[in-house]
């Protein structure tokens, strides 16, 4: 055991004072007796005259000495050696993601985390150093290592919960960096466990203590939303939304879709516990506007009950299809609104100059044009050194998260033959057979390329509904980003990259809360980056007379899934378990003082019992 204030033992000098009080001044009640003869004999036989023997059976004195000893012990602030880990350095990582706004614990999970961190600060002794890191967008050190509890408490008050997703991996990397080279380091993780970015994280070289925050998980949230032209009627707009119920009870709610604050549709929805419901809305959109989808439901997390997306009318793009004839492809392309399609069966360099996007369907020109390309069943030598035919390749995997493969599964698609290649470095395989990639996507020499390694007509794919969706996805992805109808819809914390006007020096951006930020533009660059998109809502870029809007939304299923987690997966094999681990050296003056108080009460009781 150690003592933080061993000088308090000087108070032990007060112990003899109590003894002196007992010896010198004891209040006695006078009683007249017939004779003192018997009492003199009684005292001689049973109560010796020596001062300390007189004290032998004075329980009150012993109790008072015990009380004073306990008080002195508490003043000395003893540290009890526990089973916990040795620590001198504490790195506290606080999750500031949107899920920490949950109100399942009152007033919120963030407040609970603050309380628990404050309790941890309380256990620090003079030699402990603590650092506070807010893990979010951006991850930042709120308080550098210090032993000042006042500074730590003040810094802790500056950590609010943001509207962003979790970015704990970066926080852990930062903490691990600080922990390097130090001994007796503990990293304390205060999070609700709604984390999706720790899969590739290495276990830090420090003791990791996970403090789970939150209790319940009764949350319904909009976890996905997308706007695109209606595939069946290109003049209207389709809004796809995913609503998930992460609670344990089925819920009834009403989905409300509005366009520029005008209600478009209200739709009742029953959603089972643990289920995700996909909903599609069709709306007529005469001009650019903001679609807002909201759930009128009181649950633990409010931020995911509303999503706003900016919907632009697609700009026309010219597409050149070089093909010997492919009706499925032509129909899929023609169903996309705002496209000017030109079809040719031979390569014409002049025609290609006019086009924004060229589709090479089995026809390979001598030199590849410097345009965005959808290359089907062509094998340019510039891309592939060697092509080996693959008979009946089986689709084994596809990258469903890639924008091109969105809503376009390749289940039960049979392919007669394909060209076996090795993917070049610039390309990402998004559909793979067992031996070869079947579809690649990437950027090469300033152009976007989507490559199919087989002829769709030699497969069953054109008969599936996923084929026209794939074609639409690919063309949207290949055309310039500013032509995408979904451009300008970000996740909170994501940076916006957009073209800059060369004639102006500054640009004003109005944030969802109404405040305005001015950005200075570098005249030599054609783009500017705006990264302060941490709040959910609609942002306005104001320059000259132009007003351009973009939206920032949470749309993060892992944040909406607010159920408490007792473990967090770290890397492939690591697992952080919720810890109730106590510190190695626990300051224990409080229980000692409580014990002293109890003894004092007992002494009071004993005194009255004895003298009544």
């Amino acid at each position, binding site marked *: 055991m150690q003592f933080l204030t061993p000088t308090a033992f000087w108070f032990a000098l007060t112990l003899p004072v109590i003894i002196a009080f007992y010896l010198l001044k004891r209040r006695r009640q006078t009683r007249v007796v017939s004779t003192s003869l018997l*009492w003199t004999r009684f005292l001689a036989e049973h109560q010796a005259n020596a001062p300390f023997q007189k004290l032998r059976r004075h329980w009150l004195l012993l109790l008072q000495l015990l009380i004073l000893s306990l008080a002195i012990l508490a003043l000395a602030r003893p540290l009890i050696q526990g089973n916990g880990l040795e620590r001198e350095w504490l790195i506290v990582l606080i999750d500031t993601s949107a899920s920490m706004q949950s109100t399942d614990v009152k007033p919120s999970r963030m407040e609970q985390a603050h309380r628990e961190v404050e309790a941890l600060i309380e256990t620090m002794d003079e030699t402990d150093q603590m650092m506070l890191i807010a893990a979010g967008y951006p991850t930042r050190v709120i308080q550098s290592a210090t032993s000042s509890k006042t500074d730590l408490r003040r810094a802790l008050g500056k950590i609010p919960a943001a509207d962003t997703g979790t970015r704990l991996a970066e926080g852990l990397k930062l903490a691990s960096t600080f922990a390097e080279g130090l001994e007796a380091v503990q990293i304390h993780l205060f999070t609700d466990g709604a984390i999706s970015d720790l899969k590739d994280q290495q276990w830090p070289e420090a003791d990791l203590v996970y403090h789970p925050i939150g209790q319940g998980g009764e949350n319904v949230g909009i976890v996905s939303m997308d706007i695109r032209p209606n595939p069946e009627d290109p003049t209207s707009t389709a809004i796809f939304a995913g609503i998930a119920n992460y609670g344990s009870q089925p819920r009834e709610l009403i989905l409300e879709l509005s366009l520029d604050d005008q209600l478009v549709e209200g739709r009742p929805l029953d959603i089972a516990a643990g289920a995700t419901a996909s909903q599609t809305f069709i709306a007529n959109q005469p001009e650019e506007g903001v679609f807002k989808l909201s759930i009128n439901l009181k649950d633990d997390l409010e931020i995911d009950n509303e999503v706003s997306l900016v919907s632009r009318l697609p700009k026309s793009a010219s597409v050149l299809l070089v093909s010997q004839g492919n009706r499925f492809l032509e129909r899929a392309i023609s169903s996309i609104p705002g496209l000017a399609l030109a079809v040719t069966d031979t390569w014409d360099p002049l025609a290609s100059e006019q086009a924004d996007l060229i589709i090479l369907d089995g026809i390979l020109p001598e030199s590849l044009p410097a345009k965005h390309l959808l290359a089907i069943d062509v094998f340019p030598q510039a891309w592939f050194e060697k092509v080996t035919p693959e008979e009946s390749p089986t689709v084994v995997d596809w990258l469903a998260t890639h924008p091109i493969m969105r809503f376009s599964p390749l289940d039960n698609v049979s392919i007669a033959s394909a060209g076996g290649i090795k993917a070049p470095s610039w390309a990402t395989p998004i559909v793979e057979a067992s031996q070869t990639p079947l579809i690649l996507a990437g950027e090469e020499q300033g152009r976007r390329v989507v490559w199919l390694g087989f002829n769709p007509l030699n497969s069953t794919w054109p008969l599936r509904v996923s084929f026209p969706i794939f074609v639409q996805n690919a063309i949207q992805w290949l055309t310039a980003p500013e032509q995408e109808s979904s451009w300008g819809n970000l996740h909170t914390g994501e940076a916006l990259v957009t073209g800059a006007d060369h004639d102006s020096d500054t640009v004003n951006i109005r944030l969802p809360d109404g405040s305005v930020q001015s950005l200075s533009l570098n005249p030599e660059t054609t783009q500017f980056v705006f990264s302060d998109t941490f709040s959910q809502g609609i942002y306005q870029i104001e320059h000259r007379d132009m007003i351009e809007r973009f939206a920032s939304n949470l749309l993060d299923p892992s944040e909406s899934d607010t159920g408490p987690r007792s473990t967090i997966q770290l890397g492939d094999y690591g697992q952080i378990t919720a810890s109730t681990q106590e510190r190695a050296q626990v300051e224990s003056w409080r229980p000692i003082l409580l014990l002293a108080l109890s003894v004092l009460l007992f002494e009071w009781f004993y005194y009255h019992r004895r003298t009544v």
Partner: protein
Amino acid sequence: MNPGKPDSLISPEWLRYLERLSFLSRKRSRSSQRGERRSRARGHSVEFADHRNYVVGDDLRYLDWNLLGRLDRLFLKIYEEERELPLHLFVDLSESMNFGTPSKFDVARQIAAAMGYVALNGFDRVHLNLFPNSAAQGAQGLPPRHLRGKGSSMRLLDHLSALRPGGQGSLNQALQEAARGNRRQGTVMVISDFMDPDGYESGLKAWCSQGMDVHAFMVLASEELNPTLHGDLRLVDCENGSHEEVTFGRHQLKAYQATLQGYLDQIQNFCRRHAIGFHLVPSHINLESWLLADLRKAMLWK
């Protein structure tokens, strides 16, 4: 006590019981006064004692004519002389006797009254010794030193009734002074709490050495036998003002009782060694049954 109402000390029913009693002395009377007690002296009574040879001058009325007829020799019949048996009553009137409920003093004078009444009723002389002297000079003045005859019993009761305890007395001194002036053998009854710091041994021995039949009656209050004191106490002696500081509670009761028992054992051993009758009288005792039953068993009277 009101002299007109002696029954407040001893009730009339009690007196009737007491009238039937007579002392059983372990000693023969040596008194010169005639009485109703058998004595070593020869004299004129109905109790035949012995024969002796006739010498000239003897009263011819005591010749044993039957022996003269049978043996033709002169023998004189000798009869026992019945004399009185003096009773010395010592009653402690010190302040310490004014203690307890009922007070030890009340019990002591009731015992003295009963003893004195029985003695006077048996034509024995009663010497009433009260100490300390300051208390003995009560409302009735000096106590009657010698009482004799049944008629004196009312005087005795009246005087005892008028007594009030007080002052500090020495048991040894009172016993020794009285022993020095005594020339007659008899019975001595000392009624006290025997809590004199100077002791009691020399006083009792002074009487034992004269061959007296001595009885000690130790009267103790229930508060002394089982004290109900608690806490940190300053105990003041009511007689001499000395004090002791003691912390006392229920847990010390056994230790106190052990001390008391040790003191009682000490007195009893002393009395046994000197053939003194010892009688412990708690003040709350049923005095009637004690006098009439327990003392009969103790062969004090019959």
